[in-house]
């Protein structure tokens, strides 16, 4: 018997437990099945790009902290690279290594949150989330040592980092690095073979490699679809060409693959940190620069592989102390454009986990 049904519109958000901030979706539903969605954002708009035009080049760094507040260090890093490219500044060796260590630690922390939040969306009642937070806490402790902050670090500077690593940092990092493989194994034991997780996530929300490229997705979302593209290898910045690491990829591009991809990337990050810890030289951590940086007129685009994907800063200078234009390419926003294709035909519960598996931060989408 065919029952005649009528689609209805459900307004999900801006305040909803699993929209990862203030994000709103207008979902058209046929019973439980998602017919169409329309993402609406802008609830967290702070005008960071415009604010940047009135600030000095150093003064913009705290603003970048507020973009993807889960990975502030990566934002600092990308911005500083852009200014250095614009002004042609050479960064001291030690600072480069510190930056890499910090950025990779930040990647681990951000991916842990991504995985935890994804599992939370799957309905595991906060247990994985809090387990992941337990390890993130250790990383945040390390960041607190170097920068004094626990969320918006404001640590990196144009031409280096704000201060050298404190003496207790390296032993603490070594301790963390020794513990981490055990924790990773623990997560795998709990989750990889979990029947319900597999039933929920495998084959759900498939994004093919072609689709991913067409909507310029990047980061784990792209690589989970089987495209081997990582800016650390494709366009090496900083000193990433000195490290030996692999680019893990998955095949199908479903939610489960995106989860696996993040776990694998965490492993590679730990591998990079280990190499950097061995190679790190001593020396200055900041280039000799004037108080106010006045880059020559021109433009520069620098991009890094942030935890969520390609994070780019496009700066235009008119030889003043503030940029003429600062454009940010946020990976969350671009990855989100794939959402509509991924969720159509799936159920509400799937919509939530597909959305969770893209891993967005609204601070970055709305800027």
């Amino acid at each position, binding site marked *: 018997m065919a029952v005649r049904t009528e689609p209805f519109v459900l307004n999900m958000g801006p305040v909803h437990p699993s929209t990862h901030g203030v994000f709103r979706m207008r979902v058209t539903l046929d019973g439980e099945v998602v017919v169409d969605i329309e993402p609406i954002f802008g609830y967290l708009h702070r005008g960071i790009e415009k604010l940047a035009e009135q600030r000095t080049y150093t003064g913009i760094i705290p603003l970048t902290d507020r973009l993807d507040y889960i990975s502030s260090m990566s934002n600092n890093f990308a911005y500083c690279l852009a200014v250095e490219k614009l002004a042609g500044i050479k960064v001291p060796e030690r600072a480069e290594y510190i930056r890499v260590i910090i950025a990779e630690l930040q990647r681990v922390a951000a991916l842990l949150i991504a995985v935890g939040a994804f599992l939370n*969306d799957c*309905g595991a*009642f906060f247990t994985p989330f809090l387990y992941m937070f337990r390890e993130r806490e250790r990383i945040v402790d390390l960041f607190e040592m170097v920068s004094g902050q626990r969320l918006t670090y404001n640590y990196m500077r144009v031409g280096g980092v704000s201060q050298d690593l404190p003496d207790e940092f390296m032993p603490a990092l070594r301790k963390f690095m020794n513990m981490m493989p055990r924790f990773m194994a623990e997560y795998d034991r709990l989750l990889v073979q979990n029947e319900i997780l597999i039933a*929920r996530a495998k084959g759900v929300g498939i994004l093919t490699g072609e689709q991913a490229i067409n909507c310029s997705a990047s980061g784990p979302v792209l690589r989970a679809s089987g495209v081997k593209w990582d800016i650390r290898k494709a366009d090496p910045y900083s000193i990433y060409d000195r490290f030996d690491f692999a680019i893990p990829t998955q095949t199908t591009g479903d939610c489960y693959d995106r989860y696996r991809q993040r776990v694998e990337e965490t492993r590679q990050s730990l591998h990079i940190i280990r190499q950097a810890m061995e190679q790190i030289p001593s020396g200055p951590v900041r280039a000799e620069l004037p108080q106010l940086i006045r880059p020559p007129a021109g433009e520069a685009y620098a991009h890094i592989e942030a935890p969520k994907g390609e994070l780019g800063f496009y700066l235009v200078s008119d030889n003043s102390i503030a940029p003429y234009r600062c454009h940010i390419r946020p990976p969350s926003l671009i990855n989100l454009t794939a959402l509509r294709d991924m969720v159509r035909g799936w*159920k509400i*519960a799937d919509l939530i986990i597909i959305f969770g598996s893209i891993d967005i931060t609204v601070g970055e989408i709305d800027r």
Partner: protein
Amino acid sequence: MATIELNIYNLVNFQSIPPDWPGGFWWHWLFFTVVIIGFVLTMVMGVIYIERRGMARMQSRLGPNRTGPFGLLQPVADAIKVLLKENIVPDAADKLIHWLAPVVAFAPALMIFAVVPFGNGVLLADLNVGILYVVAISSVSTVGIFMAGWGSSNKYSLLGAMRNVAAVVSYEIPLVLAIVGVVLISGSLSLNQMVVAQDVPFILLQPLGFLLFFAAGCAEINRSPFDLMEADSEIVAGFHTEYSGMKFAMFYLVEYAEAVAISAIIATLFLGGWRGPILPPWLWFVVKVIIVFFAMVWTRTTLPRIRIDQLMAFAWKFLFPMSLFNLFITALQVLAGWPTELVWAMIIVNFAVMAILVLVWSKLFFKLGRGRIEV
């Protein structure tokens, strides 16, 4: 009873009013009504505390520990908070239904305890159709929940309520079929008689029945991993999204009172109810209820939630056939007249049967496509 007379007097005719109770029928009734309400409310507070502390421990947190010694007064503080909160009713709500829903949902959870024995013959009404009464009464909560979903005129609420009805209708069947196995062995529908018959706890004689009942019971009362009627990450709070203040507290109470009720039924049917050495019967009963509830807390912290179509598939493709098998095998054993002195053999046989059935059928379940059904 030789002849079955179907009149209302027979249904409420107590087979065993303990002779040492002071007074007659009405005193008995009054005493137990007060005891049951007190017991359920105390247990609800207790299990909320256990759940919050237990969950916190499993999630490497501390949980409530500020209110009173070890945070024991946290449920009291919560109760005071919700009592003082404003009661908000949406403009578009169906006022009467919205108001009535928490009551309709809450009453059955209390009524179940009318037939649950706290000791030998210590119960409000030793109905000779006790377990049938439990099954019938526990379904009434669904009506209350659907009323809440419909009456709040909120789309999340309606989705949650629809899911709840779908789940309860499906899970009633394996639930009842799992009970039938116990009924066959004990030879009675009265809960007290079932406990009396449990020289060996039925969890040993009916391991498969226990698993089925536990899974179906969890689904029936919206415990994780079947908690998708109030899936907080999907549909905010499901059917009670639009409730606040004391009405919300009623639903909160329903949730835990039902959890206590289903734990009590499991303890009675499968774990030997009030029977046990040394400790007084009622204490044994409480301990067993808490053990069962703790198992539910454990699953809640461990497992992700399943999807609505998987929920249905799990009921119809897995639990339903399994419960039929279980019933068939139990019926054969009872019909063949398994000798009482060979109970230990029956335990081994039944555990083996359970292991084989679960393994084989879960393999088949994957072949059938693990919940890919069209709804």
